[in-house]
């Protein structure tokens, strides 16, 4: 759960395009994964979640894909809008209890 570096990777997309944000998680025993969105000056907000017994889950304009073989999680945002500009974090629940371990985060910038 420790941060992966001093600088967040940045994904820059054109408004209306689809965005794909990737995350590698650390614990093969994790059974629950969440994507959070953090806008500037705010705390993280829940976007979508997925359990380890699923490989895909869809929400409104967002889809989360889970590949347990390679411990990889992705968030797809359809028709990206300027309001989607934020930092996106994946989080996993690696053990019992309500703890979350956060991944390194990706900054999404949407160009009008």
């Amino acid at each position, binding site marked *: 759960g420790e941060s992966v570096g001093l600088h967040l990777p940045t994904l820059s997309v054109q408004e209306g395009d689809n965005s794909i944000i990737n995350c590698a998680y650390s614990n093969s025993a994790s059974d*629950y994964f969440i994507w959070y969105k953090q806008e500037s000056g*705010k*705390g993280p907000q829940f976007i979508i*979640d997925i359990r380890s017994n699923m490989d895909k889950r869809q929400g409104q304009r967002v889809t989360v894909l889970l590949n347990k073989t390679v411990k990889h999680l992705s968030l797809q945002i359809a028709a990206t809008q300027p309001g989607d500009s934020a930092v996106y974090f994946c*989080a996993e629940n690696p053990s019992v209890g309500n703890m*979350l371990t*956060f991944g*390194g985060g990706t900054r999404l910038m949407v160009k009008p």
Partner: protein
Amino acid sequence: SAVISQKPSRDICQRGTSLTIQCQVDSQVTMMFWYRQQPGQSLTLIATANQGSEATYESGFVIDKFPISRPNLTFSTLTVSNMSPEDSSIYLCSVPAGRPYEQYFGPGTRLTVT
């Protein structure tokens, strides 16, 4: 959903001093969490605070540096003691939400230590 407020929203402090951050929730919750988010980085859990018991600290965080109070089910404080520039971060509190393992987060306290 829970509404969480934090005070102060930001502060600039001198090294060697201490700052106490307050977290207020609009509903009663058993568990509250405190996170640190260093500049440009992800969130790291500092400790879990349950009402009526001592906080449980994660590896790398100690009570002498980050004392936590939890006097009731809607309030908690985190103190950053004997601050150094390395403590410059955003400090966030959170509470469990309705979905398993989901958490509601406060807006954060941006601390700069000079």
